[in-house]
């Protein structure tokens, strides 16, 4: 019970007023891009590129705060709690783009919207691991985040009877591995 309370408290602590302001700003910019983007296959590609590229931005902020490491939580519990805010932050662009495109009369399909959201969340889950690394290693995780997000977005091109299930399946698999990896890294990390 106290683990659930701690998870919610950490997530809320990380979603400060500044976080909300940044989220709204990103959402507004994405809505503008969605409204201006021409309809058709290009719209989804542009939305996916924006969502995945923006997901790592700010995802790593505050993760190294010493106060979190003094809490009586295991690495995997802390990882789950720390990952909520970046995932919520990553949803700003897909939601904004979708809303902007819909308002301009060029609404994306529900399947594409879900794929966009999943791609952004997966990119954010991979990107959080960059917070615990320095220099080129941190950048490698940002590149991995972009690659993972692109993989989920690209899975919408899967054809066949169950082709529609490809993005959620890929997102679950990649996201699960990324979160496990983040938990392992947090458990081993020493805040020096």
């Amino acid at each position, binding site marked *: 019970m106290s683990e659930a309370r701690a998870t919610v408290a950490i997530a809320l602590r990380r979603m400060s007023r500044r976080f909300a302001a940044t989220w709204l700003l990103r959402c507004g910019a994405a809505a503008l891009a969605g409204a201006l983007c021409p309809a058709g296959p290009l719209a989804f590609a542009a939305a996916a590129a924006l969502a995945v590229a923006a997901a790592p931005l700010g995802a790593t902020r505050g993760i190294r705060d010493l106060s979190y490491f003094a809490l009586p939580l295991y690495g995997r519990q802390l990882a789950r709690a720390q990952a909520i805010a970046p995932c919520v932050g990553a949803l700003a662009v897909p939601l904004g783009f979708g809303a902007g495109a819909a308002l301009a009369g060029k609404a994306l399909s529900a399947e594409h919207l879900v794929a966009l959201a999943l791609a952004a969340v997966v990119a954010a889950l991979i990107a959080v691991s960059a917070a615990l690394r320095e220099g080129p290693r941190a950048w490698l995780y940002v590149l991995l985040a972009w690659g993972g997000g692109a993989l989920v977005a690209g899975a919408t091109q899967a054809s066949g009877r169950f082709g529609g299930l490809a993005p959620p399946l890929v997102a679950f698999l990649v996201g699960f591995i990324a979160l496990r990896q983040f938990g392992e890294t947090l458990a081993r990390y020493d805040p*020096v």
Partner: protein
Amino acid sequence: MNRFDTLTTSTRGFALKILGACFERAGEELVAPFDLSLRPGERRTLVQPSPLSASLAARIAAAIVKPTAGVVHVGDFDARLQPAQAKRLVGFVPAGGFTGGPHAFSCQIGLRADAWGIARGDARRRAAGILEAFGDGADPYARALALALIPQVALLVLDQPRGPAGERAAGFAPGAAVLTTEVAPAVPFRLEPPLAAAARS
């Protein structure tokens, strides 16, 4: 590479037991191996040659940092294998105290109350009670102490304490073991010829 050691002596009756704990990074020894044991109510000061070493030693004792080698037991819990249980018993006051604003302080109280499963109202009252003892409560170390003592702790770790909060901290945690770290720069050892030999030549 971490070396996994095992503690072969009993931890019964100890709030903290450290055997051969050290910390290395990139081949550099930041904390030399040290042993330490503390029973409930005892106070000890651990002296280190630099602020970084002192902070690291304090964090090792508080189960926040894992030692490169050696064993740390907080109560009956191995800090490497059962970090969550070990941290539950520890109140850690970082060097420099808590420097965030009033909103951040209030959020921290809520966070710690939720993490330790304490009612938020009780946590706020306890923190306010400790801060009251230090006047206006603006002292960063007093604020960090108030946060550390929101739960009932068996071990209080004070990293390089300063001011009245550092001196009076133990009074707010009766029965708890208190470990303090301090910095005392090492005097370089100089080998000189004996005076008598020098006089003969």
